[in-house]
């Protein structure tokens, strides 16, 4: 399972509305459940909030990777967005966040999910990737900005 397998262009959302952590997570959860109607938006939202309470997933440089396990779910779900307004995520460098990558995984297969998380974090660590993401205006641009350099058009 690699990053490219889990990112869905329909869940690449440039300029997502919301100026707070709460609203961004809420809007993202809503968007996810429109594509995956078997999930409940409130449920996903609560799981994300519960994980954030234990420690912020804001990893610095304006990037946050909120993630959670969803009991009973069977698929790995990813969503990527940039936000209209940067929001306080309680990130380690205290910088407001404007790039958010959501990852919701089923229970079990811990190592595979950790690897996935590491891959996401690594990609978003690149200054160039972040600049491209921030400049993206369409889902396609957002998706392609995420690709490693060799594959990017």
């Amino acid at each position, binding site marked *: 399972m690699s990053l490219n397998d889990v990112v869905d262009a329909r869940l690449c959302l440039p300029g997502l509305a919301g100026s*707070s*952590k*709460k609203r961004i997570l*809420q809007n993202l959860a809503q968007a996810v459940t429109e594509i995956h109607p078997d999930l409940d938006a409130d449920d996903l939202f609560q799981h994300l909030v519960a994980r954030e*309470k234990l420690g912020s997933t804001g990893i610095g440089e304006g990037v946050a990777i909120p*993630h959670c396990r969803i009991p009973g779910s069977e698929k790995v779900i990813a969503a990527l967005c940039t936000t209209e307004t940067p929001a306080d995520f309680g990130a380690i460098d205290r910088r407001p966040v404007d790039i958010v990558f959501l990852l919701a995984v089923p229970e079990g297969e811990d190592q595979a999910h950790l690897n996935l*998380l590491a891959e996401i974090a690594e990609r978003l660590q690149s200054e160039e990737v972040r600049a491209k993401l921030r400049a993206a205006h369409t889902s396609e641009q957002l998706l392609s900005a995420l690709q490693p350099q060799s594959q990017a058009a």
Partner: protein
Amino acid sequence: MKIIILGAGQVGGSLAESLASERNDIVLIDSNDRILRELRDRIDIGVVQGHASHPDVLQQAGIEDADILVAVTNDDETNMAACQVAHSLFRVPTKIARVRAAAYLNYPELFDLKAVPIDVLISPEQLVSDYVSRLIEHPGALQVLDFADGLVQLVAVKAYYGGPLVGQELRYLREHMPRVDTRVAAIYRRNRPIIPEGSTIIEADDEVFFIAARADIRAVMSELRRLEQGYKRIIIAGGGNIGLRLARRLENRYSVKIIEYGHERCIYLAEELNRAIVLHGSASDQDLLLEENIEDTDVFLALTNDDEANIMSSLLAKRLGARKVMALINNSAYVDLVQGGDIDIAISPQQVTLGTLLTHVRQGDMVNVHSLRRGAAEAIEVIAHGDPRNSRVVGRKIEDIDLPEGASIGAIVRETDKGSSVLIAHDDIVVQSGDHVIVFLVDKRQTRYVEQLFQVGFTFF
């Protein structure tokens, strides 16, 4: 975090004050414009004037972005309605409300996400009666706080001449009581904190905070002061909700008399209580107190809803010979005034409520936050999560945990196959995921650092 507080009364005001200093975005809503302006002049918060449960008022306060709603207006119905609005219209993740009326509290099924969506229900009367009954359980304690459902307690006592440990180094405690494990978390000498070490010598009049398993509290207290005899005879002044609750709880183990002024209320109390004796009259009636042998009373509890009456009747009871007097005092200015004088213990419902509120607005998996010494110090119970890769606590020895100056781990409660076990903190104990860690902070300003210390790293799922 964005926190909206409804009601700028004593609890709402002090909560806002306590949180505003912790890098939070606080908005206070109240219908009284004057109180709001006063608070805003003093602390860095946003204010909105209006009816606290109305959606448009909440929206003005930015409810869509709020992580937490704390509804502590003086009106139960407003608090409940506000939580419903916050849930149904704005999906606020955490909703905390104060509800006083037993008429509601008697139906716990009412407070459910599918009914009245309140995540944390706070009943000050319940909290105060728990607080008082713990004090009665440990005669001589100034303060008794529960952790891990009462398995571990933090107790504050005043050291007296005659206590075996007084004048000795702390390390002597271990030699003297090899089978009892305890940890002295802090010592206050002339109101200044001392971080205890093995070589610290306890002096008479020191206020000592120690942590021990509940079963060992009595043994530790006997080291610090001549052990007081258990209480037997209790007089409660005021048969309101708190008085009735306590009388009910105490009547089977103690001889309880309850004095109530209202005749009809007396009849109700007599019906509700089995063994306690209900007396119709005034608690400040000297003849009544003498007739009821006040001089042989171990504890006199003044629990009416009138501060002045509570202060006067407990002073009178003390003068007439009651061994210990405790008074319920709402006005926090009075609490400071009377504490430590003739009144042995002043009980502030606001302080007790504040601790419970703080538990739920703090980052991390907090189980208990107790505000101590008028908010200057704190004792917290937090669950450690994660593994050595993503936690700065799990997998480490206590001595290797990077606690700030003035913070110390007092005990750990660990779930095992055989149930919960209490581990009093020693340098070589290694923290495991799921441990309840009890931390004492001499300076509340360190709380934020401790919160962060217990946060899991990014790779935690």
